[in-house]
């Protein structure tokens, strides 16, 4: 065997096997890691406000609530209850 073949067989093949096993073990975690929340770590992402699809919510009256969700809305709804918590 030439030097190139020796290196390929004794370094390349074991390296490939190690890479396959490592990607199987850590690959999924590495893909999901940036988005995983860790308690105590800062949350550097943009604030997001999620609302349900307007068609899914039954709204009384002819005027659906959708326009009230637009930015710069002038209507004010006072909060009356709820709960709070910290972890």
């Amino acid at each position, binding site marked *: 065997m030439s030097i190139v073949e020796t290196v390929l067989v004794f370094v390349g093949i074991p390296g490939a096997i190690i890479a396959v096993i490592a990607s199987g073990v850590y690959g999924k975690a590495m893909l*999901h890691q*940036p*988005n*995983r*929340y*860790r*308690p*105590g770590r*800062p*949350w*550097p*992402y*943009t*604030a*997001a*406000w*999620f*609302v*349900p*699809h307007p068609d*899914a*919510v*039954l709204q009384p009256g002819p005027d659906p*609530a959708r326009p*009230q*969700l637009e*930015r*710069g*809305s002038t*209507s*004010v*709804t*006072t*909060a*009356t*209850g*709820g*709960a*709070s*918590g*910290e*972890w």
Partner: protein
Amino acid sequence: MSGDARVDPNHVQYGPIGHDLGAHGFTARQLTRLDEALTLSSRESGLMFSVYVGELKPPTRAHAEALFERLTDDAVLLAVAPGQRAVHIVTGPGSAKRLPNRACALAALAMRAAFTNGDLTGGLVTGLRMLSDSAGRI
């Protein structure tokens, strides 16, 4: 009620699924779960649930209530500040009739348990389901 808390509209994004995946800190699968839970709980209960995930300026409760002022009477806001480890559930005049504070506190407790384990999406989905179940069907 809003106090000194001011909501900067530039830092708020609307929509069940954001345009820029990853900017919210959620994966596409997590966003799908969240969207599904939001839609189902809102459809079943008739209340409009909404979820805010992001920074809440102190006092966090006042900021959450300031956010709620843009919603309707029948809305329920779940505001979570992962950085400050705070969760607030805010109900309005309409939704408070169906969701007493005790039910909200129970949902907040379950959400806190999930958040402590680092499961942000799971906590939100659990909270939405519990609140929807407490409110009952229309």
